[in-house]
């Protein structure tokens, strides 16, 4: 099956440091793929290259098999690729409807719209619908973000990404700051995203999380892909071995 998003031989240098040294990576349609690696392995740089924050010095990025050039995150967004950042990128003083539509505000029709008047009702309605589709329960979409729990905030950020991503949602350490129950809720949410047919890149340090939701895993080490696992190869031993460098696949 053709990859939704693929990196081929990507090199990214920052001054004299080579963060990515001919990295390959692929995401297939409708799958959750875990991107693993130790600190400094190049996970963040790779993801930033895939979503338009960085442009590769060498190699290419392909969407549905066609080479693309992302000059900014909005180029990637236009191709249906959204990122849920670790800091969630939410405004704590605004409510969830306002955050979901942040910088994509719906305006009223006619003259009012030309003057920039917001369509509050429609934004609230669509946010409620999106939350409901993902089975996320909030007291109300009109509650300020800082009155919600960490898990609920994470959910709003994920729902926002899904709302605008037709192809792919990238999640950077989505369970890192959460309690046990809330972690489970986020993992359930990731599975629901897959059910909608979208792909997910899950960046995580948490091997049990990866084993629970990911269909495949790709491991980076020193700026290169060193291992790929799927099916019954997805074991704690293999994943940890690959992250620490004890296990390296020659053909990865």
């Amino acid at each position: 099956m053709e990859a939704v998003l693929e990196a081929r031989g990507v090199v990214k240098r920052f001054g004299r440091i080579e963060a990515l040294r001919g990295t390959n990576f692929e995401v297939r349609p409708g799958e959750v793929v875990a991107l693993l690696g130790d600190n400094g392995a190049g996970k963040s740089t790779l993801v930033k290259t895939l979503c338009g924050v960085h442009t590769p010095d060498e190699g290419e990025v392909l969407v549905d098999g066609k080479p693309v050039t992302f000059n900014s995150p909005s180029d990637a967004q236009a191709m249906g690729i959204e990122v849920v950042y670790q800091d969630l990128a939410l405004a704590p003083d605004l409510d969830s409807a306002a955050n979901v539509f942040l910088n994509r505000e719906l305006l009223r029709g006619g003259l009012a719209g030309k003057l920039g008047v917001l369509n509050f009702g429609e934004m609230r309605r669509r946010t409620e619908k999106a939350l409901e589709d993902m089975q996320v329960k909030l007291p109300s979409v009109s509650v300020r973000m800082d009155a919600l729990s960490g898990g609920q905030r994470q959910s709003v950020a994920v729902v926002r990404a899904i709302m605008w991503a037709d192809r792919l949602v990238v999640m950077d350490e989505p369970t890192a700051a959460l309690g046990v129950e809330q972690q489970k809720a986020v993992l359930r949410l990731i599975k629901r995203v897959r059910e909608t047919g979208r792909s997910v890149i899950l960046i995580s340090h948490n091997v049990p999380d990866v084993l629970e939701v990911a269909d495949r895993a790709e491991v980076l080490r020193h700026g290169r892909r060193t291992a790929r696992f799927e099916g019954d190869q997805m074991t704690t031993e293999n994943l940890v071995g690959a992250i620490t460098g004890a296990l390296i696949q020659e053909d990865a």
Partner: protein
Amino acid sequence: MAVLAEETTRDRLYNFTSRFQIFIILILIVAVFSALRFDSFATFANFRNVLVQAAIFSVMAVGATYVIITKGVDLSVGSILVFSGVAAAKVMEALGDQGWPIAIVGIIVACLSGLMWGIVNGLLVAKAKVPPLIATLGTMGIIQGLALILSGGIDLKDAPYVLGDVIGFGSFLGLPVLAWIAAAVIIIGGVVLKITKFGRHTFAVGSNSHAALEMGINTERHLIKVYALAGFLAGLAGILSLARFGSTTISGHATDNLQVIAAVVIGGTSLFGGVGSVFTTAVGVFIPAVLTTGLVMVGAQSFWRDVLVGMVLIGAVYFDQIGRQSKK
């Protein structure tokens, strides 16, 4: 969920009471003065007087509300007011006529001067990344100095008569024209902040500028626009002040910035950014204005006004802090 619903109710109650707190304080102040001096305080003439006092500050405070919501501050508004008045007076003097065409040129010159300085402030804050407190402290001195150089340090008094007759002292439907202008600025400024995309982005930039940037908002450009708005309104205040006092009042605005910030904060806009309203700022402007006239009428020294305004200011920020902590 039950716990959350409770928090939500408290959140709403907090928002509700903090919005109304300031109205209640204003009504209490009015009630006390009315009880003490009903014959003179609770009169229409005095009401008009208070409106005029509050009008020019309100215009500046609308801009300051936007700035403070972005987590910024603008110390240069008083200097911009003076500079714009001087620039307008100079141009009108040079054109040397008393009619409306000249007055309109003066109004445009004042507003454009203010706009220009506002853009300078915005560029310093957004592009040069100088903290707003320092950037506008610097421009406050620069602009005031240039106003003094431009005028030779002597107040200009050659404003066209129509400006004073119609705008400075005129009435429309029984209320001062200055008050109508201020009301228009407050209503437009308040509605734009509440229901438009521009207002929404102002809150977003103040609440979490990093998030706003990640979602693709051009935060630098937005900040420049907000400071430009504050400058423009200070320029408008400059021509209103010239119309009212018939003089550029060069040395009379050194503490305008602090009084404007006090009004905004008393009105419940948070110095931490992301929260605020132009309409409550308007109430915040009225409290010092009411105290000034009220204290004079009850025979107290007017210096008490500063003492009381200071106490209200500290109280407003104190309750804002408590409200924030209770939400955490």
